[in-house]
């Protein structure tokens, strides 16, 4: 498989005076899993809908393989998509749902059973969507996305409602897909899973692209900060700042601070000399979550 490149070129989208997406430019290359991160309302889903041709950009363009979705010969066989797993008619069975998707893709009905089997719904083909759990609807959405054997996958929150076994299955499936040359763009608010899955991350904040880099580079942004906690945190803070450190309060932890510019040994010595007891002292390992929270809290630009 040779996946196609996804390109966003100065994509903006406004609803009246509200700007949902502002001048987003990015290139997503095949052979990797790209995570789309951002708080609620950041513009991730809107950007994905624009890419799929569901919504129209106010300006700019979103292309797959250099062409808009509407110019692709077989859109569903080029791009597999899942935006909202619950967007299935409740009276339709899983098999009936895939039947119309297969027909729209120009695929035979014989493609339905393998697709159901692939996502673990082989025994639920006759079950109406209204009776499927969120996780099962999620699997059905993935079956529809994968049905046309596409080379690009666009998945909005695909991990929602999946059980641990399903998450592992999806992670492995996406990795295999990308390793085979496919292009994966997925959004998720589950940072740990995104860290375990994504090779690259694109971060949107208030509609603006604030980061586009390798996931490991993004996580490393918070590596090295030191967490210290003490019953006398104010005195500890004064002492460390006098020693050349930069400190920052920790949300929901009035007894703790994060310190940069000093190492753990120096922090320990400074606390000892000041007679301030420490109840915690450790170095942050960079995580996607901490980097994401830090970035979206400050709204830092790329």
């Amino acid at each position, binding site marked *: 498989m040779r996946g196609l490149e996804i390109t966003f070129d100065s994509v903006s989208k406004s609803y009246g005076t509200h700007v949902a997406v502002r001048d987003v430019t990015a290139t997503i290359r095949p052979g990797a899993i790209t995570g789309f991160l951002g708080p609620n309302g950041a513009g991730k889903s809107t950007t994905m*809908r624009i890419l*799929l*041709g*569901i*919504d*129209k950009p106010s300006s700019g363009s979103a292309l797959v393989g250099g062409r*808009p*979705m*509407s110019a*692709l010969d077989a*859109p*569903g066989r080029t*791009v597999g*998509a899942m*935006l*909202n797993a*619950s*967007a*299935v*008619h*409740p*009276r*339709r069975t899983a098999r*009936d749902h895939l*039947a*119309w*998707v297969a*027909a*729209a*893709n*120009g695929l035979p009905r014989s493609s339905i059973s393998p697709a159901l089997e692939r996502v673990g719904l082989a025994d639920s083909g006759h079950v109406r969507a209204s009776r499927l759990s969120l996780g099962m609807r999620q699997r059905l959405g993935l079956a*529809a996305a994968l049905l046309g054997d596409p080379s690009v996958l666009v998945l909005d929150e695909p991990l929602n409602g999946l059980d641990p076994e399903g998450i592992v299955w999806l992670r492995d499936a996406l990795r295999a897909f990308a390793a085979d040359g496919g292009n994966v763009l997925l959004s998720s608010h589950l940072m740990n899973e995104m860290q375990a899955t994504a090779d690259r991350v694109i971060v949107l904040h208030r509609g603006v692209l604030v980061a586009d880099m390798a996931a490991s580079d993004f996580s490393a942004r918070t590596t090295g900060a030191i967490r210290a906690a003490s019953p006398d945190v104010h005195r500890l803070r004064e002492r460390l700042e006098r020693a050349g450190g930069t400190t920052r309060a920790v949300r929901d932890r009035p007894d703790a601070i994060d310190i940069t510019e000093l190492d753990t040994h120096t922090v320990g010595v400074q606390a000892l000399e000041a007679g301030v007891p420490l109840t915690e002292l450790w170095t942050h390992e960079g995580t996607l979550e901490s980097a994401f929270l830090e970035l979206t809290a400050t709204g830092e630009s790329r």
Partner: protein
Amino acid sequence: MKTALLSELLKLRIFMPLALIAVGAGPAVAVIICATLPVTQNSGLADLSAENIVSASALGLDACAVATIVLASVAVGSEFSTGQITQSLWLTPRRRTLFGAKLGSVGIISIGITIVALAGTSVVAAIALAIGGHDPFAVVAGNSIRTLFGSALMPVFYGLVAACAAMVFRSTGGAIMTALTLVLVAGITPWFGDRVAEALAPVSPSAAIHSVAGLASHVEELGALGGTVTLVCWIVAASVIAVTLFARRDGGS
């Protein structure tokens, strides 16, 4: 277009109960109307002309039209209410193609419903004729066949209008209200006198259908060709409005 049309037809499978209701409504209402003719017309079947009995039976197709309006509205409107339109647009991002497939599928199912309902209504009319001592084959003779075929345009016409309205309003309720309003306006127009009815006749779908069916009163007579042109203009206008809005707006849901 072929794949989009096929997928839209497959989507309609879950609405088969509504289609059966629409099919059954024609002959069922025809039976009720024929059975109550002695009361409503104060004459027995034997005293009524064959054309009167057939035109009374054809009212069953009005009921079929109402049921088809509901079917078309639910079929298209539920795409928006369930959010499935996003998947339809992903698979068929060319909006004119998707619109054409939706309208085509509603047209095909409406024609199918109409053919079966027409056959059932015709059989009811033939039985009523036989009971009244008339020749049952009078149902396919003279003006009677024109009456039945003209009335059979209703389910298809109003089904297509409802489908367009569902695309415009993105809702089942809006589609049903629009199509039923068109039906009801025809019913109340005579209340405002002949001059109003005559003035509205060229744009009235009801006058057009009555003209094609040979049932038009003197104030709404457009002739078969004039009636056909009016109906075609309505479908073209509704389609142009619906496809233009569909092409311009975001996908919804």
